[in-house]
């Protein structure tokens, strides 16, 4: 019964989305507040409908209602509760419902929170959001409905269980973050479409876009980080990023959103780059949809993809083509009429942000080409090929390196016309810190690696640059300390956000370069009591014992690690067998040594080399991943920066309207408008 209610609510949500489009569009055409308000009401109703449907699906999973096809295929009575709930978005159908939930949720939020927006723009935004809701809800209802029942005579007694690799806390919360990030770009998309139809893109518009872009970007950052962390400790391959198409699919919208955040600043402060900001606003959601398409259609070979269904792939491609085509078509038609905005000198904050955008866009293009090249090549020559991680290391990394090197200078440059020499002087200390860190790494860390040391120097440069920027804002060491402290406390949150985000990038670069440069790896088949050495650590396989889990049986190894004779830690990696699906997974053990990880995997059991009679041996792999914690800490700091920036008073939606035009200094910060956050 409950799943029928859910299916009904989903239909209702679809109808409301239709009403949302009609009412809001009519509200704009007739300039009627009543109609527009009704459209906003429909947006909220549509969200409530999807929320109820989603609650029904979760209920079906929690109660293990195997008469629902999706539950039977993805759940199991013995599964822990967290994974029963997470199973609701573990499959293609359920994740599409989650997508719709986020989409209508953002629609409802935009309708209720956007009080300060001009009537016409808001009505058009709600209408566009309604079109998106309509398209995706229609797809979910008619092509991938998760609430469909199995015929009564075919209802299984037990479900097939969620893929055991997905039964993991990080992956249970990864999709909600990732999807809220992906779909958050839809509001930005709708705002861009609305602005194009209205024919006005100005500082105020950029200011309305920023909170949505920031929120979506922060969520996406956390989502990607969680996915990477999951791959790191669940796959047991010792790596954290594989340039897999599915990873790239989530990374491309992130890159575009990052570019958008920066170009929106130029549009907000200086009124320039309006067309480009619009283009990125449309592009961010287009790449999100492309990601959804790549993951679900199976056109690319990936280790993470959902089960393949060509029919759905075609439908998703049609949705992508329709939405992006309409958006960019509108852009091509209307954008030339937009006003061009202020001019700026080649050396200025604007130029630095433009350079940031050029590099990010080029990097996105490189990732895009590498991801889709197999498709293009196959369409042209019919040969099946694959593009390895080597391509991305060559094509992507240098551009990011250039970006990292110029980054600290950007926030120190003045708007309109900057003073490169002055900036250079102010960055002297940071440069010294960076060079010092690089030389120190070269001197102290063995084996000696120039490229790794260079990476460490870049990471230190970013961190020191962020700190320098903060010191500049507070005039540290130039005015009395108390004065500096007062300035520090009084800094706008947006400034803190930027500093933290840049700092987080530095932390990430530091961790990533150190891990890639100095990781160690060892693998061997060990009998009980056998030993393995990795990066100065001495591992002893103490014993292997069976362990019972809630829905799996496991072999658990006890591995004792020592360094220079002193005990360090005991790792308990497991090899789990899930009887429900007949699958095996490895559960990694990680010893945390400061920021570094000693990473142990228990592999297959093999027969004794001496003969069948002897005791069995196990394949044991161990990795030394120095400073790996920083890789995951960096993005968290970046996302934190986004959230703090989001809490800035001046970014709240209601306030934005009152402080128009954007160039007008605000009363509280009137004395130093130059020091507004970038």
């Amino acid at each position, binding site marked *: 019964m409950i799943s029928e209610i859910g299916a009904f609510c989903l239909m209702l949500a679809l109808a409301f989305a239709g009403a949302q489009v009609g009412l809001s569009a009519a509200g704009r055409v007739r300039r009627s507040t009543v109609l527009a308000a009704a459209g906003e009401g429909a947006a909220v109703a549509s969200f409530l409908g999807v929320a109820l449907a989603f609650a029904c699906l979760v209920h079906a999973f929690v109660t293990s209602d195997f008469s629902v096809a999706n539950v039977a*295929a993805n759940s199991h009575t013995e599964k822990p509760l967290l994974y029963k709930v997470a199973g609701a978005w573990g499959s293609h159908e359920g994740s599409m419902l989650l997508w719709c939930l986020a989409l209508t949720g953002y629609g409802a939020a935009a309708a209720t929170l956007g009080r300060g927006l001009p009537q016409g723009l808001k009505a058009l935004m709600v209408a566009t959001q309604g079109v998106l809701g309509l398209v995706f809800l229609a797809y979910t209802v008619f092509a991938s409905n998760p609430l469909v029942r199995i015929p009564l005579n075919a209802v299984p007694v037990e479900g*097939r269980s969620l893929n055991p*690799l*997905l039964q993991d806390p990080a992956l249970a919360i990864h999709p909600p973050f990732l999807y809220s990030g992906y779909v958050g770009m839809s509001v930005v998309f709708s705002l861009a479409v609305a602005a194009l139809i209205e024919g006005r893109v100005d500082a105020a518009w950029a200011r309305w876009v920023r909170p949505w872009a920031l929120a979506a970007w922060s969520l996406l950052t956390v989502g990607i980080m969680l996915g990477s962390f999951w791959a790191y400790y669940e796959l047991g391959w010792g790596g954290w990023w594989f340039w897999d198409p599915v990873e790239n699919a989530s990374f491309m919208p992130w890159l575009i959103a990052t570019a958008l955040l920066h170009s929106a600043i130029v549009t907000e402060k200086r009124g320039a780059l309006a067309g480009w900001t619009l283009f990125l606003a449309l592009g961010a959601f287009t790449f999100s949809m492309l990601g959804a398409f790549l993951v679900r259609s*199976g*056109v*690319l*070979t990936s*280790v993470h993809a*959902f*089960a*393949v*269904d060509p029919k759905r792939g075609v439908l998703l491609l049609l949705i992508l083509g329709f939405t992006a085509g309409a958006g960019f078509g509108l852009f091509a038609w209307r954008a030339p009429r937009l006003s061009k905005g202020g*001019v*700026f000198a*080649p050396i200025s904050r604007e*130029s630095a942000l433009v*350079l940031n955008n*050029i*590099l990010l866009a*080029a*990097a996105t*293009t*490189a990732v895009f*080409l*590498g991801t889709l*090249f197999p498709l293009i*090549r196959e369409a042209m020559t019919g*040969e*099946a*090929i*694959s*593009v*390895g*991680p*080597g*391509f*991305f290391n*060559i*094509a992507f990394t*240098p*551009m990011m390196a*250039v970006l990292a090197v110029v980054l600290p200078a950007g926030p120190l440059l003045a708007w309109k016309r900057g003073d490169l020499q002055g900036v250079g002087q102010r960055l002297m200390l940071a440069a010294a810190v960076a060079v010092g860190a690089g030389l120190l790494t070269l001197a102290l860390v063995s084996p000696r690696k120039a490229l790794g040391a260079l990476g460490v120097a870049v990471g230190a440069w970013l961190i020191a640059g962020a700190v320098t920027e903060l010191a500049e804002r507070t005039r540290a060491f130039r005015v009395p300390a108390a004065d500096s402290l007062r300035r520090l406390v009084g800094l706008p949150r947006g400034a803190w956000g930027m500093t933290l985000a840049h700092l987080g990038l530095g932390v990430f670069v530091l961790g990533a370069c150190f891990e890639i440069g100095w990781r160690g790896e060892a*693998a061997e*088949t060990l009998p009980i009591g056998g030993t393995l050495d990795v990066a100065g650590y001495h591992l002893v396989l103490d014993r292997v014992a069976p362990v019972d889990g809630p829905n799996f049986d496991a072999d658990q190894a006890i591995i004792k690690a020592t360094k220079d004779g002193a005990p360090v830690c005991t790792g308990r990696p497991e090899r789990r067998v899930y009887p429900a*699906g*007949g*699958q*095996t997974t*490895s559960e990694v053990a990680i010893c945390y040594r400061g920021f570094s990880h000693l990473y142990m*995997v228990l*592999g*297959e059991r*093999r*027969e*004794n*080399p001496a003969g069948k009679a002897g005791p069995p*041996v196990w*394949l044991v*792999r161990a990795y030394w991943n120095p400073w790996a914690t920083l890789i995951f800490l960096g993005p968290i700091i970046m996302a934190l920066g986004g959230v703090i920036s989001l809490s800035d008073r001046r970014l709240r939606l209601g306030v934005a309207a009152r402080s128009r035009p954007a160039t007008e200094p605000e009363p509280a910060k009137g004395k130093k408008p130059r020091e507004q956050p970038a």
Partner: protein
Amino acid sequence: MSWLPKSPKARRRLTLVGAIAPVLALAIGLTLWGLRDSISFFYTPSQAAKANPPPGRTVQLGGLVRMGSVTKHPDGRVEFVVADRTAYDKVTFQGDLPDLFREGQGIVATGAFREDGVFEARQVLAKHDERYMPRELTKALKEQGEWRGDGSTPGYAKAQTP
């Protein structure tokens, strides 16, 4: 600098072009250079026999793991036979096989052929999801009539099919 155009708009455009051009050149150069070295071709055993890739060149070999062909050596080396309808190749792999590696299942191995015709795999890919098969493999197997069921079929029965 008198050669610069006078209008500020034209100057800005010139600056923009000046900034974009090197990045674009860098991006294109890196992309082409990167693609030259890191693309690898996908073959089934019979396609590999026809194309005959030179030993040492990185390629991907896809097919079904022949039943009963898997030999696991105690030193960690694994040998198995990857086959399609008309041809087969011996594969040797040093390391831990993916958790979903099974006889009779489709896999994709990345590596290179040795002089003696044995395929030395650096990486063996089977899927997280037992319902999934790599797309190149699906296509190649379908063309040969070796296809064993649609990827989207719920695998109640499939899980038992050898």
